[in-house]
C-alpha cells in the first residue's frame, strides 16, 4: 500500500509546521515540530507520551484548527470496545423494522441481510473518521490510550496500518482521505511494541522556563509579565520536588488565572493562600508546598 499522504497546506516543512502551530497559540519546540511535520508528511500516526497536563491533547486540537478540519475524539477508558469506538447496530430500529415487515407479511430470505445494512448502522468515532464524506483528512484523536484494554489496542493495529474497518455483515470500509491520527498516553501502563512501532514517537516533556513563559503569555495575556515570571519560576521549582502529582502546564495556566481573579499581582506567602487547589491536586502535596513556600519565594526573589 502506498503510505504517501496528501500534502497539508501550512505543514510542508518543519519551520512552517512550527509557525502554523504557533499561529493557533501552541508553542511547539523543534522536536515536536519535526515529529508533527513527519507524521503528516509520511501519513504516520503520532504517539505522544508524557506526564499529565503537558499539552498532549492540545496538539490534536490545534492541528485540527490549523488544518481547518474536523477533530474526532475518542476518550479511552477501561472496557472501551468496538461498539463504542467503531460502530454499533441500531437494535431498536432493526427490531421495529422486523416487526413492521412481519405485520406486512413481507417475509423473505434476504431479511437478515437487509437489517444489517448501512441504514441501521450507528457510526462511532473511528467509523466517522474514515467516512467517505470528508472533504479532507480529519484529525482523529485517540486520547489516553493507556486506559483502554489491550484488546482495543490490538484492534487499532489494523486501523492504523490500512485505515480501513471491517464490519462482518457489511464488508470493508476504507477512508477516502486518511485521517491524521494522534494517540496520547499517560503511561499508566506500557503500550504494545507493535503499535508503537507503527507510530512516530514523541515524549512531551515539561516545558523549559522560556517556553512556559511564552505559553503563559499567549494563553493568559491578562497576567502581567512580572507575575507570569514568578508563577513560572515557582512552578518550575515545584516540578523538581518529589510531589505525588507535579503540576503541568495546564495547572500553571489555571493557577495564573485563579490568582488574577483573586486580584493577586505579586506572589507572597499571603497571596499564595487560597488558590492552591488550582496548582496541586493532592492534599499531601498542598501541605508540603505550603510549608516550603516561604523559602521557595525567598529563593526566587534572591
Amino acid at each position, binding site marked *: 500500500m502506498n503510505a*504517501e499522504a496528501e*500534502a497539508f497546506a501550512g505543514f*510542508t*516543512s*518543519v519551520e512552517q509546521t512550527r509557525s502554523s502551530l504557533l499561529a493557533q497559540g501552541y508553542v511547539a519546540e*523543534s*522536536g*515536536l515540530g*519535526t*515529529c508533527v*511535520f*513527519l507524521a503528516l*508528511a*509520511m501519513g*504516520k500516526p503520532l504517539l505522544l*507520551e508524557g506526564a499529565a497536563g503537558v499539552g498532549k491533547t492540545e496538539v490534536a486540537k490545534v492541528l485540527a484548527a490549523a488544518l481547518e478540519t474536523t477533530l474526532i475524539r475518542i476518550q479511552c*477508558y*477501561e*472496557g472501551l*470496545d468496538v461498539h463504542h469506538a467503531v460502530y454499533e*447496530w441500531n*437494535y431498536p430500529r*432493526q*427490531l421495529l423494522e*422486523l*416487526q413492521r*415487515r*412481519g405485520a406486512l407479511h413481507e*417475509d423473505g430470505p434476504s*431479511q*437478515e441481510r*437487509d*437489517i*444489517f445494512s448501512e441504514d441501521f448502522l450507528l457510526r462511532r468515532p473511528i467509523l466517522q473518521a474514515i467516512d467517505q464524506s470528508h472533504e479532507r483528512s480529519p484529525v482523529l484523536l485517540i486520547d489516553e490510550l493507556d486506559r483502554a*484494554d489491550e*484488546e482495543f489496542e490490538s484492534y487499532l493495529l489494523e486501523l492504523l496500518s490500512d485505515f480501513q474497518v471491517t464490519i462482518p455483515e457489511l464488508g470493508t470500509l476504507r477512508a477516502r482521505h486518511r485521517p491524521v491520527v494522534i494517540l496520547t498516553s*499517560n*503511561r*499508566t*501502563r*506500557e503500550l504494545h*511494541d507493535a503499535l*508503537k*512501532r*507503527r*507510530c*512516530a*514517537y*514523541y*515524549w512531551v516533556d515539561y516545558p523549559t522556563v522560556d517556553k512556559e513563559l511564552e505559553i503563559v503569555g499567549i494563553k493568559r495575556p491578562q497576567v502581567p509579565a512580572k507575575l507570569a515570571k514568578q508563577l513560572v519560576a515557582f512552578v518550575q521549582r515545584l516540578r523538581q520536588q*518529589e510531589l*505525588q502529582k507535579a503540576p503541568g502546564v495546564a495547572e500553571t495556566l489555571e493557577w495564573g488565572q485563579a490568582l488574577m481573579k483573586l486580584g493577586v499581582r505579586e506572589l507572597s506567602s499571603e497571596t499564595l493562600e487560597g488558590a492552591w487547589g488550582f496548582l496541586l491536586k493532592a492534599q*499531601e502535596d498542598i501541605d508540603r508546598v505550603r510549608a516550603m513556600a516561604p523559602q521557595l519565594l525567598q529563593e526566587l526573589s534572591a
Partner: protein
Amino acid sequence: MSDAGSGPDAPTPALGVEAQVFARNLLMLPYLLRRAGVPVSTGQTLSWLDALTRVELGDRSQVYHASRALLTTSVEHFRIFDLFFAKLLAAPDVMAPGKKRRPRAQRRKAEPALLSYMADKLRPFEAETELEDRDRRGSYSAAERLQSRSFGAMSERELEQVKRLIQDFRWQAIYRKTRRFEVAARGQSLAMRRVLASAARHGGHALELPRLRRKEKQRPIVLLADISGSMERYARLVLHFFCALTHAYKNVEAFAFGTRLTRLTPALRLKNVDRAVAEASGQIHDLAGGTRIGQCLSSFNRRWAGRTLGRGAIVVILSDGWDRGDTALLTRELSFIARRCHRLIWLNPLLARQGYEPRAQGMAAALPYLDDFLPLDKLRDISDLAKHLAKLQPGRGSRVAFH
C-alpha cells in the same frame, strides 16, 4: 510525491562536508541501537530513511528528532539514543574529502574501533554500576553471600526441599471482572447483535436470547521484599517464592528493597528457576544493610506505581517492619499505595512468634493501611497465603484491626 519534504521552491542545499560525514555515520544508527538492546524493526528503519529524505539534513535538531521519533518507542531509550547520536556526530570520517586519505589499514580499523567504543560505553549504562561498586567495597560479593547463607534453622538439604516445594506449588489465579463482555449462556444483559441476527432468521421472532457476561481477567500482582539485614536469612527463600509467583501468574512485578529499590522482574522471568534466582540475587547489592522502607516505597511510587498499580492490583509487601528511616514518610507512601491497589498484604516473618506485637516503629505505623497482616515463617504460611488469595472477594475487604 517525492518533493514533500522540501518543496520545489526550497531546493535542498548542498550539504557541508561535516554534514555529509555525519549522514554517512548516521546510517549505522539502527544497527548500533539494536546491538544495545533497543528493538528497532526493519519497518522502523525504512520509515526512518524515508523521514531523513524529508527533513533538512543540515539541521541537526531536525535529524535528531526525526530519528528519535522513528527509531525509539519509549522514553527509556532516549538516553542510549542520545549517546549514540552524539557519538556519531562527533565520529571522524575517514573518507572526508579535502583531508589526506588515511592509509587503508587505519581506515579499516576505524569502524570496529567505533563499535567497540560504543560497546564499552554501554556497560556503565546500567546507571547503578558505579554505586554498586562502592557498595560492595569492603564486603564480599552480595551474590556469594546470598548463596552461602542458610535459611534460619533449616539445614541446606531441607532448604532445597522447601525451594522445590515452593516451585511445585499450585497457585490459583485471582480474577477480577473487567468491563469487557463476552457472549455466554447466562449474563446480565442480552447480546443484542446475536438476538437480532437470530430474530431476522425467524421472521422477527426472537427465539434465542444469548446473553453477555463480563469477562474476567487476572489481577496484576506487585511483590516488594525487604532483603535488609534483619530479613537476610529469608532472602533466598523469598526469591524462590517470588520466582514461583512470577512463573505462575501473568502480570507480576517483583522488587527487592533495603536501602534502595531493585526491580527483579526481568531476572525472575527466566525459565530456569535456579538461573532466575541467581540472576535476581546478583542484582541486589545492598543485602544485609539497613532498611529504609519509606524511602524505598517512595521511589517505587515515583517510578513504578503508575505503571504497575492500575487495574486492581494486589500488592504484597514482605518485611519485618524494622525501619531506620522516617516513619512519617513510610505512612505517607503506604497510604499512597493503599489508595491505589485492590488489596495491600503485608507478610511478616515475626508474626508467627509467640507474643509478637507489631511494635517496631515501622510496623506499627503501617498497620492502619493494610488489608491483611499475615505471618511468613513456615511453608504452611505460604499455602495459607495461597488459600487466602484464592478466596479474596471481588469487593474490598475491611482494613485490618489495630487502628
